[in-house]
């Protein structure tokens, strides 16, 4: 059990590397005002939204890609990316009308929409490339007054809500990738939970990048009105391709008084092969706004995929007594690079935030935790607890931690703990002596390491996350 054998153990397979042969309606590569007009036009968008996009594009052109993250990748040529791709048949009323090839894809991904419909009680808004193809459970949700639909649909059906909240958490010019998304976003999900309503089921979206050379720029907006509650699940995969693909999403969450949003992600974009070829560049802006008093926003993420991950789901704690949480497991194996973390901005009084992160690096993987906790002057008695743990498997990987702490208030309490551990030969031998194989031992140790985060995931996701970790870290070597 020297490092070579550990490394062999880490060889992994990516199970979702198939492509689907369906007719796509794709724009040629390139980005200019005309492209944005075409996208807007294809979606029958009102003029205000087109202007909003064009405004974002203007801002984006003046911005430059951020370079502060601890990630290396070749320069992205934004003119070589196609900004719209959709399956040709659309406007579907029921599952029966969905292209059977797409359904097959979903089945391979292990998201049996039919089954979920009947058994799990999970409503799925499936985003295939750029257009939302099917939404289940709409009727049940409608009964509760919950709106759960594709973003494009929301723009047409609920323009007032969209207009009021779009860009209110992540402004257009927030950062380079958010600005790009604001200009070209294709589709995504929209959720509105009315006052004093507990969403009757967990909502779920699956994203998948299928078409070659397309970027995926989805946009998600979730609004939880006063006293409401919702749990939202997001899962992602992409086919194996030698080229790198860009994914730049924006997610905005708004929680009003006493509202509670739980947002869980299992991200398994194609990470590239064992030599670092191909894979998704994942530049995502996710932010929640605890706008109301006693509101709560909780992010849980399991990040096992992507060649490059740049992602900091954050919470702005505006309301008094509001709560922000961030639970994260990130894995970087082979040549994957992840620079991920969170921001907790305490503005209201008696606000509380918790950050628990588990970074696992293996192979040549590089993992960075970057987190900011900011406690503003008015945030009396604010509290933060941060715990950042890193685990190293093998001797060629790296783990880095950059906590930024800014406290402007004397009555606040901040705690930060950080540990680094490794799976050592001694541990593996100890397990082997008790009959536990190397694969099982790594899985046991990694799952133990991630337990604090996995227990925050909804049941069906927790199982998937554990299995994903096994695929990501163990491979088939016996």
């Amino acid at each position: 059990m020297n490092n070579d054998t550990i490394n062999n153990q880490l060889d992994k397979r990516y199970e979702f590397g198939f492509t689907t042969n369906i007719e796509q309606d794709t724009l040629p590569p390139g980005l200019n005002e005309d492209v944005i007009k075409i996208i807007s036009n294809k979606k029958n968008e009102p003029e205000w939204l087109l202007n909003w996009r064009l405004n974002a594009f203007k801002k984006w052109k003046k911005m430059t890609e951020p370079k502060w993250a601890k990630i290396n990748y070749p320069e992205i040529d934004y003119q070589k990316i196609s900004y719209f791709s959709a399956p040709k048949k659309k406007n579907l009323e029921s599952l029966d009308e969905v292209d059977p090839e797409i359904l097959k894809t979903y089945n391979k991904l292990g998201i049996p929409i039919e089954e979920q419909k009947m058994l799990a009680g999970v409503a799925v808004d499936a985003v295939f490339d750029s257009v939302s193809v099917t939404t289940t459970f709409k009727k049940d949700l409608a009964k509760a007054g919950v709106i759960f639909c594709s973003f494009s649909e929301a723009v047409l059906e609920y323009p007032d809500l969209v207009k009021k909240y779009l860009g209110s958490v992540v402004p257009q010019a927030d950062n380079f990738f958010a600005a790009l998304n604001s200009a070209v976003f294709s589709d995504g999900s929209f959720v509105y939970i009315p006052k004093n309503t507990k969403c009757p089921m967990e909502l779920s979206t699956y994203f998948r990048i299928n078409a070659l050379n397309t970027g995926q720029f989805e946009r998600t907006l979730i609004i939880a009105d006063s006293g409401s509650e919702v749990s939202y699940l997001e899962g992602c995969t992409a086919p194996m391709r030698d080229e790198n693909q860009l994914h730049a999403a924006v997610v905005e969450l708004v929680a009003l008084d006493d509202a509670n949003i739980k947002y869980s992600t299992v991200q398994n974009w194609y990470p590239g092969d064992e030599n670092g070829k191909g894979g998704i560049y994942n530049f995502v802006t996710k932010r929640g706004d605890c706008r109301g008093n006693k509101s709560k926003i909780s992010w849980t993420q399991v990040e096992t995929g992507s060649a490059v991950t740049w992602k900091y789901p954050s919470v702005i704690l505006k309301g008094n007594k509001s709560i922000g949480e961030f639970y994260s497991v990130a894995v970087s194996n082979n040549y994957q690079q992840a620079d991920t973390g969170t921001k907790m901005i305490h503005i209201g009084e008696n606000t509380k935030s918790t950050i628990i992160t588990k970074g696992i690096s293996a192979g040549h993987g590089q993992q960075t935790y970057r987190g900011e906790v900011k406690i503003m002057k008015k945030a009396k008695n604010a509290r933060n607890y941060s715990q950042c743990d890193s685990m190293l498997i093998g001797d060629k990987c790296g783990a880095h931690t950059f906590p930024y702490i800014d406290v402007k208030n004397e009555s606040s309490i901040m705690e930060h703990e950080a540990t680094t551990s490794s799976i050592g030969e001694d541990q593996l031998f100890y397990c082997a002596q008790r009959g536990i194989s190397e694969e099982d031992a790594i899985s046991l140790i990694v799952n133990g390491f991630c337990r604090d985060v996995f227990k925050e995931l909804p049941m069906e996701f927790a199982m998937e996350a554990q299995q994903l970790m096994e695929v990501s870290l163990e491979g088939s070597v016996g």
Partner: protein
Amino acid sequence: MILFKDLKVKIDDKMIINNFNLEVSPGELHVIMGPNGSGKSTLAYTIAGHPKYSIESGEIIYKKELINDMSPEERSGNGIFLSLQYPISIPGVKNIYFLKSAINSLRKFQGKDEIDTIDFLKLVRGLLPLVGLDESFLHRSVNDGFSGGEKKRNEILQMLVLKPDLSILDETDSGLDIDALKIIAEGIKNYRNEKRSFILITHHHRILDSLKPDRVHILIDGEIVLSGGAELANKLEKEGYGWLRKKDLND
């Protein structure tokens, strides 16, 4: 049970075990004593198959089979158990999951189905009092933050759960207070029967008073220089190892 023939073991190009010969029959408890650095722990690790220790020459024959190249997991599956001198901690992994993985790995090796969770809990709960531990112990991370005594009791608990045929106990009695020592000794004593064998590595005769060993061997520079009965342990405790070295030189 186990037979060593002219065993030579190297670690990092240094020969630690030299011409080691020994036979332990079913039901026997053999004691190995010796000064620091004489190769006692190396011997223990070599029997368990630790990859760092390479067998230069000689044979280890266990249950009539040559096991020189057998993996640690397989040796474990075949009934070899090593209680470590310094048990390893595994933060985040609950003791109960570790025990369950171990017992299920053993059952898989034996071609049996996984153990039923209720049966497993019954089994472990029944064994806990034998090592003087309560149930909260099962929900702590493996050896993480355990006291020295707790670690050693945990090793004995694992032995009782896995029911090995050959147990190698590497200084399991070191660093224990009198009460803990008594518990450990009782645990081993109760586990002994005519089929199970033990190799006990120790510095102290105390544990031997209640365990009644069949043979005591003295290891110096990787070789057994003297063997005898329990009285040998008493003599060593009084006189140390000096007289043995002189004897070596005189020969």
